[in-house]
């Protein structure tokens, strides 16, 4: 029986191995045929003309993710601080489950909310600069909301894990409650905070449906935050339905690039967490 459990445990090893094998086996040949340079750094994506450069999508993913973190992380950190140090017991019993529920809302619902509310809103705001509703900014704003529960969920326990003596020490030196939290407790929790941010980064970069619903999805180099863009994830979903031959393989190769990004992010996360335990 022990061996049955062991085999079950090996399931995750097998899964990761299979995912790697299938993605790489189907994606690498296309990269080779297109040329790694042309594929990764090419600024033109024209499947009709057999031109497959995904640089615009890489840049698009980076822009959207970066902007989303810039907007979402400060709110997430402050909210986590609120939950850990400012929240009255009664409010906590409402706020905490509410934030956990946020993590459960499907991405299509977020996306639909984006279409219905954020897109018109951003269109109005950016009218003066000739902005569009479906834009980098809209996608980033939506992602910023979507990563909140993930990031808060990691940072709050990290803040709580800081020994109370740090806080009390600062208080005893005459610092206010706020100063003690921000200048004594937060620095001590920095690796946990970093882990939260990196996890949010992974979530934002991998998010697909919500982003394609509001990002505009034009496969070209970004022209400003209020203009449309296509991300790596979007590229796969939008064209996979009708792609054949090299085009299809190029989309799978896009998946490989995305997968590589995610693996790097995961590795960074592991390193941060390992450092934490030491």
């Amino acid at each position, binding site marked *: 029986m022990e061996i049955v459990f062991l085999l079950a445990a090996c399931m995750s090893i097998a899964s990761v191995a299979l995912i790697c094998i299938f993605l790489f086996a189907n994606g690498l040949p296309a990269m080779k045929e297109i040329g790694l340079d042309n594929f990764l750094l090419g600024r033109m994506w024209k499947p009709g003309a057999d031109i497959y450069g995904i640089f615009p999508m890489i840049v698009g993913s980076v822009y959207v993710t970066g902007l989303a973190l810039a907007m979402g992380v400060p709110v997430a950190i402050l909210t986590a601080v609120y939950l850990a140090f400012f929240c009255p017991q009664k409010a906590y019993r409402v*706020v905490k489950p509410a934030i956990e529920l946020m993590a459960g809302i499907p991405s299509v619902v977020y996306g639909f909310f984006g279409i*219905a509310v954020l897109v018109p809103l951003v269109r109005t705001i950016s009218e003066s600069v000739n902005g569009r509703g479906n834009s980098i900014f809209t996608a980033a704003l939506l992602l910023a909301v979507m990563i909140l529960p993930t990031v808060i969920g990691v940072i709050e326990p990290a803040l709580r894990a800081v020994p109370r003596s740090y806080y009390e020490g600062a208080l005893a030196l005459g610092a206010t409650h*706020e100063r003690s939290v921000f200048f004594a407790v937060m620095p001590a929790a920095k690796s946990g905070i970093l882990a939260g941010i990196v996890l949010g980064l992974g979530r934002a970069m991998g998010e697909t449906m919500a982003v394609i619903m509001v990002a505009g999805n034009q496969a070209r180099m970004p022209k400003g935050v209020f203009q449309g863009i296509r991300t790596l994830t979007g590229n796969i979903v939008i064209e996979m339905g009708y792609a054949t031959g090299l085009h299809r393989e190029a989309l799978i190769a896009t998946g490989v690039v995305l997968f590589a990004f995610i693996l790097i992010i995961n590795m960074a996360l592991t390193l941060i967490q390992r450092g934490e335990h030491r």
Partner: protein
Amino acid sequence: MKTLCRYTRRMSAFLRRHYVGSRLMNFAVHAAAAVTVLVLGFLVAYIVVRGVPNLKPSLFALQYTSDNQSMLPAIINTCTMTFISLLLAVPFGVGAAIDLTEYARRGSRLTRLVQMTTQTLSGIPSIVYGLFGMLMFNNALQLGYSMLSGALTLAIMILPLIMRTTQEALSAVPDMYREGSFGLGAGKLRTVFFVVLPSAMPGILSGVILAIGRIVGETAALMYTSGTVAKVAGLMDSGTMLALHMYKQASEGLYLNEAYATSVVLLVLVLLINLLSAKTAKLMMKGRG
């Protein structure tokens, strides 16, 4: 006397700055929490307010047509898909967790590898699962667009979630239960199945319910594995799910009212599932006391 006065004045200026900083921090913290809660509240309220008036009986017709935009086939498929995915994932997830907490020697190479790959799995975005599912199940295993193909994909996707929650639930079972059982002459297997697993059940269940929530809300992993045919589907047929159905309605832009209605059903369903999961997890804590 004069110097003392000056000193206190300088001191109080410093203190004022000191306190102004603290006030600002206090304000920022409360503002951020308010933003978080308000966004969530607004989102839920908006979907409910716009969606509920659009709920019509015709949206729940057994047959989907482009006129009635019925979501019933998608709901039925969602149930089927959830059932099959859990059937595939739960035995492996729970078995793996039993191995890791009850049998495996901590820190052995294999254990570390299992833990590392599990963490990797939980970080992989659903579109990558979708791509993999399409390549392996639809193409290589020639299942084509089918519920089975989608369920296999989802099973791998929820595996790390079930493993992690089960592991947590098992480690929360006090060692004195295990000792008590061994002390009565029960073997390892009997101890695991008759003492440890039953006491960990609420925790495991809460993880399974959480997994149901993820399955119900999933789209990207299913678009190219189970496909989007809006019909009640069997194991080998292509069939759309509720979330995917809603995505079509929303992105085509022709059926926005119906999309509101579908999204309110989806949202309420997922929120209920998550609430249920939290309630079950609490049962676990109560059993302890």
